[in-house]
């Protein structure tokens, strides 16, 4: 089969992420996050990132590890734990800036970047403090008879997108076997460099054994590199492959209470290779 080979290593991916870049991370809350790639970013020397995410522990971990200058978000949640404690600490200590967006504006920003238009109009944001908190956000007047004034949601252009899929092939095609594909395709289309980790690399001709064509959400026009990271979404949920590791998530959340707890967690789970991490969490 004439499929290009876009397999890369985690280290290749992390090497493309430079200080100050804007990085979009797929998934939603504590669900199907590219955690193996996030862990690799934590081990790297990169700093001052702008993170664009429907946020979960990806945002909390990167903030806690001092990798983040700014978070573009509409929520940061661990789902079963409503508020992400490390993100809270980072915000409440003034350590990271934030761009407060409605989650639909966030979608429109990614869509605008994907379609290469400077903005998309929306009613969303009018009357709320989104406009007060983002003085750079402008409105636009309809050129038609209605003359309605709408918010001009600017394109959210990403330097790098990181997503995680259940299955993928070496060409960078990705298959989502979960019920909700979230916005991972848009993250890819909004980004200059697009990397996908997958639970399992498979041969292209086996996708349809796993699910119908509509599960193949990521075509290879959307990706520049693919890496197999078994259990790579841990500890976020990656159904049907595995549920969220609630016990581990609790352990993670509890480390927001003290530096000692975080240091111990970091030494055990984060200052180690992905393979060592997976051994440490296989209980």
């Amino acid at each position, binding site marked *: 089969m004439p499929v290009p080979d876009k397999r890369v290593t985690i280290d290749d991916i992390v090497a493309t992420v430079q200080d100050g870049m804007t990085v979009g991370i797929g998934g939603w809350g504590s669900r199907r996050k590219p955690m193996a790639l996030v862990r690799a970013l934590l081990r790297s020397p990169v700093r001052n990132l702008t993170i664009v995410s429907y946020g979960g522990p990806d945002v909390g971990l990167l903030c806690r590890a001092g990798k983040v200058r700014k978070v573009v978000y509409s929520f940061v949640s661990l789902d079963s734990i409503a508020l992400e404690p490390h993100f809270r600490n980072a915000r409440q200590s003034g350590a990271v800036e934030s761009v407060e967006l409605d989650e639909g504006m966030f979608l429109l920003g990614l869509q605008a970047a994907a379609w290469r238009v400077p903005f998309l109009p929306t009613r969303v944001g009018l009357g*709320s403090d989104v406009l007060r908190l983002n003085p750079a956000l402008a409105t636009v007047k309809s050129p038609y008879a209605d003359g309605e004034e709408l918010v001009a949601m600017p394109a959210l252009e990403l330097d790098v997108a990181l997503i995680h899929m259940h299955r993928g092939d070496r060409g960078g095609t990705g298959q989502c076997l979960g019920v*909700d594909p*979230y916005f991972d395709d848009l993250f890819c289309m909004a980004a200059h460099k697009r990397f996908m980790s997958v639970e399992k690399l498979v041969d292209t001709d086996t996708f349809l054994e796993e699910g119908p064509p509509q599960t193949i959400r990521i075509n290879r026009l959307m990706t520049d590199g693919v890496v197999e990271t078994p259990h790579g979404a841990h500890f976020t949920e990656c159904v049907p492959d595995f549920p969220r590791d609630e016990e581990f998530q609790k352990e993670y959340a509890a480390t927001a209470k003290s530096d000692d707890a975080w240091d111990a967690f970091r030494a055990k789970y984060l200052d180690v290779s992905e393979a060592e991490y997976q051994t440490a969490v296989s209980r």
Partner: protein
Amino acid sequence: MTARNGPPTRAEVCAVALAECFRGNGEILANPIGTLPTIGGRLAKATFEPALVMTDGEALLVENILPVGVEAPEKVVAGYNPYRTMFDVVWSGRRHIIMGASQIDAHGNQNFAFIGDPMKPTAQLLGMRGAPGNTINDRTSYWIPNHSTRVMVPEVSVVSGVGYDRADALGPYPSRYHEIVRVVTNLCVCDFDTPDHAMQLRSLHPGVTVDDVVAATGFPLAVPSDVPQTRLPTDDELHWIRAVIDPLGLGEQEVPNP
């Protein structure tokens, strides 16, 4: 699943009041967030508002009445509604959400984003989530399980959900889809059916006085001369709640009986 008997609990009164938010809504997506709102929404669909469309809490639309807190025995799936499709529903005006609030003021401005300085908040909360888009595009109601002066405040720190004064300031045309139907709390039901769209007391849950509500509210609440009691659940509604929708009594965990 123990059968419960006895008079209606405060939580069950709240569930019925939350169900009443959807009365007359017909074929829209009823999208209650949280335990008692979900019980109330499913109760409305099971009884007086059968045309409501509801989710399983995730990406599926289901036609049967699911229990809360336990695995559904079966789901009668009648639709696929992942997050991206939800925006289509919301922006086309076919939803009524019941959201929570960390703070809410007299005109229904709601905050669950953060409290304090935007650069260094004293309390980082959830974020804007979908509140700006929900409130400018669709009917919205609120659920306040802990009616107190900490939540019912003179001024919210951040406006995530748009209140009536903000909507009115936009003008009638830009705000034409904005409507806050009810604020249901553990003490009472409020609405905005006043000349200036200021929140008013609509009904009191059994055992609660006007003074109780006024003392727990941090802004001047409009109080009509005659405030009725919140409607009690019917026997049929109690059966739906106790036997089908909330077999574990999670509602009573959210709002303990006084």
